[in-house]
């Protein structure tokens, strides 16, 4: 019967530990906020609203890629345009991608500075 109790205690600890982890990481670390930069006054807003960009930027980039490569539509804002405002990969892209444990393969080909001096905010 004692062994049973130990098994139950271990199992309950394992099962409840993520709650403790979540609570602790909530208290100890802040969730990353997008680091917005606007170096040039001509960029008033992003090309889409914030909500769309937060969840669907990857979708947008894929669409642009397909239109560029397959249909030759070349006058659109693509990955290169992002760094007009969001100059640093470290400050902008990686903050969220690291948090959700995501490895993107964009930068194997596309040049995007890892770090860049911060511009006006």
């Amino acid at each position: 019967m004692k062994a049973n109790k130990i098994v139950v205690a271990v199992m309950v600890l394992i099962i409840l530990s993520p709650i403790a982890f979540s609570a602790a990481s909530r208290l100890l670390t802040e969730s990353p906020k997008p680091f917005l930069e606007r170096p040039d006054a001509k960029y008033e807003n992003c090309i889409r609203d914030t909500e769309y960009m937060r969840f669907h930027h990857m979708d947008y980039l894929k669409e642009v890629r397909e239109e560029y490569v397959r249909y030759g539509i070349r006058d659109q804002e693509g990955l290169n345009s992002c760094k007009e405002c969001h100059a640093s990969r470290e400050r902008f892209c990686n903050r969220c991608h690291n948090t959700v444990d995501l490895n993107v393969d964009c930068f194997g080909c596309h040049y995007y500075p890892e770090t860049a001096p911060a511009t006006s905010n």
Partner: protein
Amino acid sequence: MEIAEQTSQGKPVWIEPDLDFIRALRKRGGESFKQCFQCGTCSATCGLSPDTEAFPRKEMAWAAWGMKERLVTNPDIWLCHQCNDCSLRCPRGARPGDVLAAVRQMSVAHYSVPRFLGRWVSQPKFIPVLLGIPALLLGLAILAREPMEAVLGISHYTSDIVYSYSPWFPHWLLNSFFGFFSLIAFLAMSAGVARYWRILKTTGIGNGAGPPAKALGPAVVSALKSIFGHDRFTQCTTATARSFSHVFVFFGFIALTVVTLWVITGRYNPLIQTDFVYPFGFWSPWKILANLGGTAALFGCVWMVWERLERREKAGISTYFDFAFVLTLGLVVFTGFVTEGMHYLRLVPHRHVAYFIHLVFVFALLIYLPYSKFAHIFYRTTAMVFAEYSGRKMGDPVLNRGERE
């Protein structure tokens, strides 16, 4: 009861054997119970049976006489964990363990609301219907997504997101669809349990005339303690593998349930980092717990199937009812892992197909809960609570006493 009254007055009793019930019991794996000559070895060897009105001897007599009412209104059938010590030692090969399993199966069907679903779930010929219903409902939900979003005023970008499932099955639809049908299943289950509890309180063994041994609250607590600790289950000596494999499936599925509830409430849960609820990274504590739980549950299911196929003597007779449940459980986890793997491999549309099949099995598991062997969670808990409530104690096995000391 009528018969009890007559016997206590010393009057002769006329018993009409319920032949239909006897035939039905035979079909569900209790083939050999007519061999029983009431020696009582089974009750003596059982480590779980109480000292008074011990089982499974009396159940064997009732089964032979086809006394269905007595069997299904009896908490003892659920106090048995089918260790099969009795079946092993039965001098007549009457296999009392299998008889009680068959009675439990009949009991689930007896209390099921609506009745016809209880019948469908216990027959293989209804598999196409039983899996067709979830597939149809899920398909309809997917088709009705856009009109429903228009009516409800839910807007989200419907373009082709790179690696997600939400264009097909957004979280609002997933949560409300499964929430709604789980609620229906839960209500049907509650109706069955309420009927069983009422009958136990009026006719159940150990009820007697006296006051309850424990208040309901403490009875529930000690029953749950015993369930989590597998206290009674691990008393088994012949079929020890049953309890160990059950531990894996039990805690594995609890882990999966906790993760599921956490994810469903994620958007509103202040303990989760609210900006990034989905997706969880592979090394997120929640993902780790889900993968561990799934592995444990799948391992337990495979072990159970292996025991049933390879050690038939110890595991007891396996019926369609047993396999349908353990295979559904296993397939829920297996299709979940297949979906996860295809998701990581970015296989489109394979991962969508796998996810759909996964959801069909999850849906089947939930919606048929009150009619399948899954219902044992509730009926067994009810019986164990009643045993605590009425003060029915686990006895000391007479035949094992010598071995223990």
